[in-house]
C-alpha cells in the first residue's frame, strides 16, 4: 500500500534542517503501523509526506501503486480526498459547522449531493455513538467525542489508508483507550493505518512499530497487540 524509497526532506530556513535522511519503508494493505520517535525525530514530517500535506525533496513515494511526486494542487487534493483519511491531535474540526456537517465535508468535495452526504455522515456518526450529537458544534463536544467525529470524517469517504497524528495526544487515558479501540476496529475492517505517537502504550497496540531517530529509521519492531491488556497499560 505504501512504499517509500530513500525519502529525503530538508527545511530551508535560516539554518537548513535535514529532517528526513533516506527513509525506506513498506506498509502492506491492512497493516497497523505506528511511528515512534522523540520530538524532532521527523515523525510528523514523515506523516505529512505520507498524507501529501507536504512535499519531499528526494526519493520516491508510491501510494496504492501510484507515484506521488510533483503532483499538481488539484491532483494532490484528489489523492487526499479519495485515498487518505486524516486524524489529528487537535481534531481540526471546523468550529462553525455541526458534527454532521464536519463529517459530510469530504463528500462535499467529491460532489456528492446534500441528501446522500448527510445520510452517509449520519451513518458514520451512528456507528461511533454520536447520533444524538449530530447537530452540535465542536465546542459543545468533549475531547473524545470530537476525536470520534474526526474519525467518522476520516472514514466517510472509505479511504484506503488512515493517517493519525498523535490521535490520543489531547485525550485522557480512558478516552485514549476508547479511541484506540475504535481505531483497531477500523483497522480490522481492512483499512491500512499509520499512527504517529511518542507514547509506548499506544505503539504497543500496533503490529509494527517503526522507531525513528534523527531522520532515519533506527529499527522496525514486530509486535503482537493481542498480548497486551490495553485497558490497563496504555499509559
Amino acid at each position: 500500500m505504501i512504499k517509500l524509497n530513500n525519502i529525503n526532506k530538508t527545511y530551508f530556513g535560516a539554518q537548513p534542517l535535514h529532517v528526513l535522511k533516506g527513509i525506506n519503508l513498506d506498509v502492506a494493505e491492512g497493516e497497523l503501523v505506528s511511528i515512534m520517535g522523540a520530538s524532532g525525530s521527523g515523525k510528523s514530517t514523515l506523516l505529512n509526506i505520507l498524507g501529501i500535506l507536504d512535499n519531499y525533496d528526494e526519493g520516491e513515494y508510491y501510494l496504492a501503486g501510484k507515484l506521488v511526486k510533483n503532483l499538481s494542487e488539484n491532483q494532490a487534493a484528489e489523492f487526499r480526498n479519495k485515498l487518505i483519511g486524516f486524524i489529528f491531535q487537535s481534531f481540526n474540526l471546523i468550529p462553525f459547522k455541526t458534527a454532521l456537517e464536519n463529517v459530510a465535508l469530504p463528500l462535499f468535495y467529491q460532489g456528492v449531493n446534500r441528501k446522500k452526504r448527510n445520510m452517509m455522515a449520519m451513518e458514520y456518526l451512528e456507528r461511533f455513538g454520536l447520533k444524538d450529537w449530530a447537530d452540535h458544534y465542536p465546542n459543545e463536544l468533549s475531547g473524545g467525542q470530537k476525536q470520534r467525529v474526526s474519525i467518522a470524517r476520516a472514514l466517510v469517504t472509505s479511504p484506503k489508508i488512515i493517517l493519525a497524528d498523535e490521535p490520543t495526544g489531547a485525550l485522557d487515558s480512558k478516552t485514549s483507550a476508547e479511541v484506540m479501540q475504535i481505531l483497531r476496529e477500523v483497522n480490522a475492517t481492512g483499512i491500512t493505518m499509520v499512527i504517529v505517537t511518542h507514547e509506548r502504550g499506544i505503539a504497543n497496540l500496533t503490529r509494527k512499530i517503526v522507531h525513528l531517530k534523527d531522520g532515519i529509521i533506527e529499527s522496525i519492531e514486530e509486535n503482537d497487540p493481542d498480548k497486551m491488556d490495553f485497558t490497563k497499560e496504555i499509559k
Partner: protein
Amino acid sequence: MFNRDFWSEIFMALKRNKLRTILTGFAISWGIFMLIVLLSAGNGLKNGVTGNFADRIKNTYTIWSSSTELPYKGHKAGRFIMLNNKDIQLLESLYQVEEVSPVLSKGGTLIFGEKSRNVSMEGVKPIFKNIEGVKVIEGRFINENDMRNKLKVVVIDKNTNEELLRTSEETSMMGKTVYINGLSFTVIGVSKGMAFGEMGQCYAPYSTIRAIYNVNEYYQLTFTTKGLDTKEDNEVFSKELRKKIAMLHEFSPDDNRGVWIDSQMVNSLETMRIFNTINIFIWVIGIAMLISGVVGVSNIMRITVKERTNEIGIRKALGAKPRSILLSIVMESLVITTIFGYIGMICGIGLMEIVNSIMESSGAGTNSEMGMSVFVNPTVDISIVVMATLVLIISGVAAGFAPAWNSVKVKPIEAMNYR
C-alpha cells in the same frame, strides 16, 4: 459548482461575521451613494444654468448704451452714449454681421378692461426670440408677417398675463385686445419674460413700434454674426467693434464703458468652462470615494483570509481543490460589494428622484420672477452609476484575489498549523 451548497457556504460565512459584513457593506454603499448625490447635484446645477441658454443661438451679440468713464476730446466723463441709426448702419456694413435686430424701448401703460399696468414695450424682430432666448409659454412670438404688415400685436409677460386674468372671467388673454398708451394691440402670446417687480415687459413688432413712435435712438442693439467660432475671434471682433463705435460717438477707444458689448458665444464658453471644472472636481472626489471603498473591501478580504487560514488548511486536507477555495473567497467579496453597492445605488437614485419631484412640484430651483433656473433635474446618467458600481466590484474582487491566492498556495500543513 455554483449550487445551493456553494451559496449557503458563502452566506453562512457572511452571517458569521455580521458586524464586519455590515461595516464593509456600509463603506461601499456610502461611497456609491455619495458619488451619485455629488454627480446629480453637479448635473442639476449644470442643467439649471445651461437651461437658461438652451434656446438661445450662440453667435449673437448685444450692445447696451451706457455712460463713458473717461473724458475725451473735450467731452466730460459720464456722458451717456445713446445708440442710433448710424450704429445700425455701421453694423450692417461689417461682413461678420449677419442680421441686426435693434430693440426699441417704449414705456407705457397697458389697460385691459378695468385693469392697468405699467409696462416697458420692446419693439423687436422675430430673431430676438433666439438671440435673447425668450421662452414663449402660450401662443406665439412675433413673426415675419407681423413685421411686414406692421401689425399691432403684442406678446405679454407671464406676470402681466396673470395680473390681467386675476378676478376676471377670462381664462386666456389670447386674441384679446389691450390698450397700450391708448393704442389697441392684440395679444398673440405670453412669454416667461424678464419682469422686474411691478413693471411688465411686452414685445411688439419692431416695424410697428417704429412706425408709431418714429424712434431713432436705442438702448439696446442685438445682432447675429457669422464666422466667429472661437473665443479669440470674438474677443478680437469685440475690440474692433468697440473702437469703431467709440469713433462714431467720440469717446475714448480706451474707455471700457460708453457701451457694453456682450458676446453670447464668450459667455457660453465661459459657462461651459466653469462646468467642466466643476465636473472634474466632482469626479476627483467621486473617484477618491470609490478608492476608499475599494481599500476597505480589500482590507476586509485580507483579514478574512488570515482568519480563515486554519479552516482553509483543513479543507485542503479533506480534498478541497484550490479553485473551490479561491472561488468561495472571491465570491464572498463579490456578494458583499454587489449587494451593498446596489443598496447604495438605489438609495442615491431614490433620494435624487425624490428631491427632483419635490423641486418640480414646488418650482424650487427656478426663479420665476427672473424667469431663470438655477437647479434643474438633479439626476445622474444611470450608465455612469452602473459603471461606477462595476468598477467598485471588480476592484474589490481584484484586491481580495491576491490574499486569497496566497492562502491557496500555502501548503495545507502550514495553513493548518497557522495560529
